[in-house]
């Protein structure tokens, strides 16, 4: 066993601020990473409800080939805001802001993130951005899809500029969060918490943070350019003034492809925590899973143009993008195989979190495979811009990211609130969600290949019966989400008391009370090994006082 590093004396770890007492400083403008994580979660779920309602407007409209529920213009606004909100206001903030903030500082044995004030500012940029985005309906919302390709977005209603501003704000928030997490992970790990002993969720955040930082800044540049062109007529994208619409696509996708992994890598981390805990086994191939996260993050910066195969790029450029995209299948495959192997000879406990995690593997594998299909240029020439794409992206974003997030909520809810969510209702939620999800999105693959383009308010009547089936299943999925929210709200007061470690999990956050104290740890623990060896004693020292009445660390003098 490696030598134990000496505990820092008098450093940040021993520098505890007094807990703020007023309601505002404690729960609103809090600098506590746990409160901020929960704030992200609540805000993210509020936006999920709003964007989910928009999704149901889409599904109701598509019940009939001639539409008729809303006008074509309204429909275009609805799906544009649905897409933008789900990506920037729901999945990214939940995957990084919510779980990142709440979980990983606890997992590495830190008292907070490196820059708590910056963290608070990051969060408080996010709700105004959401209000701006949904508020754009008042001025005429953007209608060119979440990608807002010019020149269409240059013609767009005034709300399009609000869209730019909103996404710019969440972008800055995401950049600052990435920076904060990266420094925290590099500098604030507990003694003995080497990189090869970090829980895999931390590895996932470690791979995600630089992507949030770098890619999001590139998006900020694109948004600023679009905003300047719309408001001040500065030509970047308008071809009649010498600009190039393709330039936007390059700038947008240079961000938005890494963004796909910003949305899925943290979820990979969640799954990698849930699997060993409930299979009562070490995660299979720890190093390969950690390494594959990092290699996916690196590759993600080199594949953006695979979204642009039909836009008119030199054929010779298509080849490297195609091959690099296919390469991502290898690290992703390694992860999936490792998770499946983790189940082998386990003692699997079927909590709701585990069900969602297993469901995640099934749907994500499917979405991953159609992703490989799309990376092949000739196949993409057919499928691009059709419902096949819609199906693929929902398989990875809903069946992938969102299901992983739900699994994470069931898993960490007891740590956040001290109470368990109702497991029986959870099982119902899972099965309804899983069936509803597949029924909604599976037929879309076929419809796309048969000739149904995406972003249409009306369509060929020959596709109507399949669309009706999809809509009905989507109601089931929505109902399941309502059950989930009901469960969350009900359990805050009525859930079973969880205790510190209801799952018998071995990572650090489960060794302290639920919910944790303001200062997280009475004494910063020392770490001896990876957390996943169920046959061994816990590899931590210094946690003896956590669960008894010993007083916590004395706050240092107020500065």
């Amino acid at each position, binding site marked *: 066993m490696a030598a134990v590093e000496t505990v*820092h*004396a*008098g*450093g*940040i770890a*021993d*520098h505890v601020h007094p807990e703020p007492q007023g309601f505002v400083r404690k729960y609103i403008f809090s600098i506590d990473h746990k409160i901020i994580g929960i704030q992200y979660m609540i805000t993210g779920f509020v936006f999920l409800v709003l964007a989910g309602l928009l999704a149901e407007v889409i599904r109701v409209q598509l019940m009939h080939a001639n539409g008729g529920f809303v006008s074509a213009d309204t429909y275009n606004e609805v799906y544009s805001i649905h897409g933008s909100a789900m990506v920037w206001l729901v999945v990214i903030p939940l995957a990084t802001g919510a779980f990142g903030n709440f979980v990983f500082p606890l997992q590495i044995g830190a008292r907070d993130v*490196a*820059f708590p004030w*910056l963290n608070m500012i990051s969060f408080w940029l996010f709700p105004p951005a959401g209000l701006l985005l949904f508020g754009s309906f008042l001025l005429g919302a953007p209608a060119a899809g979440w990608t807002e390709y010019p020149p269409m977005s240059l013609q767009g209603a005034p709300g399009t500029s609000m869209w730019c501003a909103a996404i710019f704000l969440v972008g800055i928030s995401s*950049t600052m969060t990435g*920076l*904060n997490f*990266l*420094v925290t992970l*590099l*500098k*604030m790990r507990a003694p003995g918490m080497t990189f090869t002993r970090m829980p895999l969720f931390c590895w996932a955040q470690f791979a995600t943070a630089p992507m949030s*930082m*770098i890619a999001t*800044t*590139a998006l*900020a*540049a*694109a948004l600023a*350019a679009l905003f*300047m062109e719309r408001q*001040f*007529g*500065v*030509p*970047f994208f308008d071809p009649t*003034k*010498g*600009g*190039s619409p393709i*330039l936007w696509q*390059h*700038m947008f996708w*240079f961000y938005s492809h890494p963004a796909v992994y910003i949305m899925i890598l943290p979820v990979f981390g969640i799954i990698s925590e849930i699997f060993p805990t409930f299979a009562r086994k070490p995660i299979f191939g720890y190093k390969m899973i950690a390494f594959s996260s990092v290699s996916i993050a690196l590759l993600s910066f080199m594949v953006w143009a695979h979204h642009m195969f039909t836009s008119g790029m030199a054929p010779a450029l298509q080849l490297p993008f195609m091959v690099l995209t296919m390469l991502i299948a290898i690290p992703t495959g390694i992860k999936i195989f490792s998770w499946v192997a983790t189940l082998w000879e386990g003692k699997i406990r079927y909590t709701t979190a585990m069900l969602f995690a297993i469901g995640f593997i099934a749907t994500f594998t499917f979405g991953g495979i159609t992703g490989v299909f799309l990376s092949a240029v000739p196949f993409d020439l057919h499928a691009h811009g059709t419902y096949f794409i819609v199906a693929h992206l929902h398989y990875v974003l809903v069946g992938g990211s969102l299901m992983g997030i739900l699994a994470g909520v069931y898993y960490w809810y007891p740590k956040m609130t001290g109470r368990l969510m109702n497991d029986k209702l959870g099982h119902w939620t899972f099965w309804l969600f899983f069936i509803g999800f597949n029924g909604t999105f599976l037929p879309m693959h076929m419809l796309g290949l048969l000739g149904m383009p995406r972003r249409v308010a009306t369509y060929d009547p020959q596709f109507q019966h399949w669309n009706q089936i999809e809509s009905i299943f989507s109601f089931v999925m929505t109902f399941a989400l309502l059950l989930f929210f009901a469960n969350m709200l009900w359990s805050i007061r009525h859930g079973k008391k969880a205790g510190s470690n209801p799952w018998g999990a071995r990572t650090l956050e489960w060794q302290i009370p639920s919910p944790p104290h303001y200062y997280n740890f009475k004494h910063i623990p020392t770490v001896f090994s990876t957390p996943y060896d169920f046959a061994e004693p816990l590899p931590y020292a210094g946690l003896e006082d956590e669960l008894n009445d010993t007083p916590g660390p004395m706050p240092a003098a107020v500065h």
Partner: protein
Amino acid sequence: MAVASLPHGDALAHDDGPDQLYVETRELRLQGFLLFLVSDVVLFASFIFAYLYLRNTGQSWPPAGISRLDVAFASVNSMVLFGSGCTMHYALENWKHNNFTKYAVFMVATIVLGVMFLGGQGYEYTTLMLKDHVTWSGSGIFGASFFTLTGMHGFHVAVGVIYLTTLLLQSLHGKYTKDKYFGLTAGTLYWHFVDVIWVVLFSIFYLI
């Protein structure tokens, strides 16, 4: 923490040496600041990519009716900025060597050179707009990319001038000591970053 008294002459106030908390905090801040600069580089890189991309879409360059930018004037102005980089370097070195007077002189020189650079850029903008009628929004991608990128850089220089002035005032009031001067380190890093960005902008706008 002992309240540092006003520095007299060439002697900086001393405290008992950096404590563990300061050392660790400094490391965090330094890393955070470097990462901030990295994301700022990405911001510039994105616009530089946009500029080079647009320039290579097959239009003549510079566009018809616009003369080439004035390299001679810009070179002199660049020298002013690079000079300020040197003075900034010496300012920090003198701080480290406990030489407060020289530090203050070099710091003031840096700020003055920064302001001169901004003045030069203002002159260049005025000439372009009044004589050649090149504007931000009315001169196609030339005006758009030139004014956006140099404007962004100019904004960074202006922020830098304000930042350095603040640092100078703070050091006059004894905020920094011989061992605790992270603010000055960050200011120096920022100023060098602004210099390096200008090297790139100068090359792509004036030289190629």
